[in-house]
């Protein structure tokens, strides 16, 4: 069986419109989940606890009778394990959030890595390091269609302040984080419900392919 889509989409000129719709759905799901939570309850919680609560809330949205029809075709998976040589069972690395359009054929996906942003956060290590954005850069985590996301759970300070710190850090570590010069860090609101969404562009260190990373800052205090 070699039914790969070797012919591609030929000259189909509107593929971008559909991709855009997919990303809008992903961010709408994050927004809907966030809307169902009481952020103040999570000011002291660990990242895994917030991720768990957010996943449940997104799931609730997806299963709600009143949710839009498109929602029925999506699922969100928390802690999705990755097959890796030499790592089996619980030892496998896990993706924080994976949004999957559940259908037959190859399933479009979008992956988020989640990190807390509070007074103990060391950006270089926790957010941008090997256990953060670095996972996408190194290819340890897959970036589907060269796009991935970081969720910043803001537990102290404001979202704009953290956005500035993230932006500065990127600028200062331009080479290490293989940041593309233009346009650099920019506001990129995919849905109005998530106003603190930013975009940075990189090159994956392992593959050399372009990588667009969306940073969504969610207040949890």
């Amino acid at each position, binding site marked *: *069986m*070699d*039914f790969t*889509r070797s*012919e*591609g*989409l*030929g*000259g*189909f*000129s*509107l*593929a*971008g*419109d*559909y*991709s*855009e*719709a*997919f990303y*809008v*759905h992903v961010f*709408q799901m994050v927004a809907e989940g966030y809307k169902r939570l009481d952020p103040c309850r999570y000011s002291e919680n660990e990242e895994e606890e917030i991720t768990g609560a957010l996943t449940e809330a997104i*799931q609730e949205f*997806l*299963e709600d*009778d009143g949710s*839009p*029809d*498109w929602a*029925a*075709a999506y*699922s969100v998976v928390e802690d*999705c*394990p*990755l*097959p*890796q*040589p*030499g790592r*089996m*069972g619980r030892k496998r690395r896990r993706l924080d959030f994976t949004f999957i*359009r*559940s*259908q*037959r*054929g*190859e*399933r*479009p996906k979008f992956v988020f890595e989640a990190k807390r942003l509070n007074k103990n956060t060391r950006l270089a290590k926790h957010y941008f390091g090997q256990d953060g954005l670095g996972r996408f850069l190194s290819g340890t985590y*897959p970036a*589907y*269609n*060269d*796009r991935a996301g970081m969720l910043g759970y803001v537990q102290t300070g404001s979202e704009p302040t953290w956005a500035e710190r993230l932006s500065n850090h990127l600028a200062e570590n331009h080479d290490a984080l293989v940041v593309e010069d233009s346009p650099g860090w920019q506001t990129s609101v995919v849905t109005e419900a998530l106003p603190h969404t930013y975009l940075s562009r990189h090159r994956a260190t392992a593959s050399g392919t372009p990588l*667009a990373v969306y940073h969504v800052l969610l207040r949890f205090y």
Partner: protein
Amino acid sequence: MYREYMYTTFGEYSRMELLDQALNQLGYSDASSGYAGDPDELCQDPAYGHLYRRAAQRCGLQGVYLLRRSERKTGVPAVYVCQAENDGQARKIHRSVWNQDTVPLLIVVSPTFIRLYNGFDSGTETQRGLLKEVDQSGLSRLNEALGSLTARSIDSGRVWEDWGAVRRHDQRLEGRFLKNLRGLDEVLRNDGLDRTASHGLIGKFIYLRYLRDREILSDDRLEKWGIMPAHVFSRDARLTAFWALDGRLREELNGSIFPLEPKRHEILKAHLQQVAGVFAGDDPNGQLSLDFELYDFSFIPTELLSTVYEQFLHETAEGSKSGAYYTPLTLVNFVLDELDEKRPLEEGMTVLDPSCGSGAFLVQCYRRLIGRKRRQIGQSLKPRELRSLLEDHIYGMDRDGDACRITELSLLLTLLDAVETRTVLGSGFKLPKLCEKNIIEADAFDEDSEAIRGLKDMRFDRVVGNPPWAKIPNDSEEPARKWLKQHKKRHPVSNDSLAEAFAWRTHDFAKDGAEVGLLLPAMTLFKHAGKPFRQRFFEENDVWAVVNFSNMRKILFPGADHPCAAFFFRSQATPHMDATILTYAPFVVNQPANRAEKGRGGKAAWNLVVNASELREIPIEEARLGDSLVWKTAMWGSGRDLALLRRLRRRFPTFGEFSEANGLAMHEGPQIRHGGTAGVVHVPELVGKRQVLMQVLKSCGRLFGIPEDALRVIPPGECFARKRGGLKPLDVCRSPQIIVDAARRFAVFSNESLVVPPRQLGIAGKEEQADLLRAIALFLSSDFVTYQQFFASTEWGIRADRATKETLHELPIPFGDMDSSELHDWARLYAELQEKARTGDDSDTQEQLLGEANRRVNKALGLRKNEIALIRDFLVYRKQLIEGRVPHEATSPASDRETQAYAKHLRDELDAFVADSSPLRHAITVYRGEENRLAVVEIEAVKKAGRPIEPEIHSAVEPLTEIARKVQNVFEKHHRHWLYYERGLRIYDRNTIYLFKPNERLHFLESQALVDADDLLSEILTARGAS
């Protein structure tokens, strides 16, 4: 080759002109047709090349019409075109082609006639096998006379409407040869020969007949050896001549082929004459009708001899005990093709079949090695090269010595197939001895066997086979039992499945990362107990494809009960982190060349076409959860069904939890027995009670009351139950109760205490719970429950049409938040239905009430419009495809209204997907052919905000003509056989997508619109560079 006839003229045309004329008339000369007219090129084909070669050498084969997905892929031969000199030669060609058992239709072109023969019917009686004849005067109208044989008809599948009946299994060589072997074995066994001697003598004669038909044992040769041909190959056979020939062959070629020496004293002249006579065409006792005179062993493919012999072995005691069963050749080739796609088998790679049976897999592997080597060096292989290819690459083992010997014979005949006749004898060449070297008679789990240890040390590059599906015998001395005891923690096996143990055992023989292709029971994917096996197996192997043949069971294995699945994996390897398993469950309804003309299947498959529209991908992580629902929805549904069923499973309590919380009893009915038998106990409670008779309800549909004729008072002598089953089942035989059919056709509430039949379920509660039970009965009678139970059941749709108690336990039930008045309403509706059913009239009102019940259930579960369509379409159409059925309602064209509904659903799905981010709208136009074959759905994406665009339906048009101007080149070059291979072909062209599909209702259901929308979106969203 038949080249000598090429330029001989006769009458008006030269032979070649005649052939050209015929090919033109049939449309085969068209470059875009599937006709392959270069025999040299055909001979390169890895699966069929050897057959084409023989046909080109001896049948005047000029070309083959192939069904194929692309130019570079192996095609399935549909029509042979041969040239003959005269009537006698044409008949001979037909007989030879029948012996190949490969191609259903044969056209023979002669100077005076053009004939169409049935390639699967030998034509023993007058005219049998001849389907049509056209004389030379009709040549100019050949396309009319053989209308359904034109390229266009074959490409569109119309050929099978006219000639589908040619596939009858009972006329094919495979079936008849098996029947004849059985008959001959029976005669020999009745004459006092034991199994080994009988099989040995038959095997030896297959070998001798092969050598004779190949003219290796020519009259000259026999004369040189002082042996009269009639003294071996006729009813006048003599032991002296037979043993003399056997001795000569042992000396000249090989001593190990079916060694009969140990049995020499048992084989009497009468036995020999019996076998020799039968092989010469005699009837052994005047009662059996044997066909040996029809056989030409130089044409029968060795691999076919091998598979037939495997069936023959199975039918004798040894085979059935060990669970061995034959593997159809189409399946063997399918498995090897799939492995070759991953990495072509070539010189230097070793192959093992750990349960080789009669060697069908090994023969085909060897055949491929020979073909590749021949292509590589550009000439035929020398006998010693063939010998080393065999000895250095091909290995097998089996517990059954007879199977090993037939494997050896099959491999050696394959070697001889590739050798020129004149170089076989007298050149000093000897056939290798394979038994005890390459083919080991041993149990694959026997750690004490030196031979097995030797094979383990070899670590093979490829492991293939169809391991036995029996249970591991409960005998502590059995090697497999010992192995299981040692390994069950790391390598779990469910229900003592020998096949699962074999799947693990491949680790001990295969190199890490070696490709493995095994045929295992399809239930491996579905059974509850198999969860630990699935979890571990998908964890420890890089499984890249699983093909589930459940729906094709009856045409792939006529007469067999157990469906199979092919597993393809790299042994002990880790898949890519984002890997998916390609899975595919071919449905007979989607196999135009295999499906029966009407209703249920019943013809044996002569090919296996991989149809792209049925492919699914399962993420490896899903497979590792071990959940059978993933495989069930992959076969019978889509990701939508999986998402729906999982959502409801999370959202509602299960029926098991609900019944426990409400103190309801749920159990299968008691096993009632006659008194006086061992292990039974008298149950006074049964006296005077009535029992439901399931045999009376065999063909019933939805019921709301048990008909009187399906009830009987249990006679006093039968008021006993098995002690072993306990008396718990009696709890559900007290009213108020519900009787739930195992096939979920009905759930009947009863106020009379009825005895629930065995295997059916009873649910019972307290007196005051009557309303609750009525409400439950209403729920259980809904479409949703049938749908959910079908998917949740491990066997339904795979092997047997039933669900179990465990399946009902898992059913999500939406009664948690209902207050008593709501439940009372449900109970009242059920009571109304019961009343209507009791009075037996006013079926319209009953339908309305049932519709109301379904609406209530759907609302209580919060089902969306699209999800209701999924359920409805599944029950009305897809579920009817069970066991390979091909119902007319599914394959007839959709009405205009249905097509319109399909188009609107497709449009709405696509519009809704982009609604939040783009002004894109979708204009859908459906072109439907006049005949029941092709439809094209044109989807134009238009940037135009506003109201949805009304779909257009154009019926009774020639869709290809309409579309041809736009995509003709792409279509004709690459997708000629879309009907066979890509029944959901999509072509993208600027802002328009063309969806090609059969003009059949099944492809225009509302639920299909959702699947089509999902497929399109998946393809667009995951295409490289889509972002």
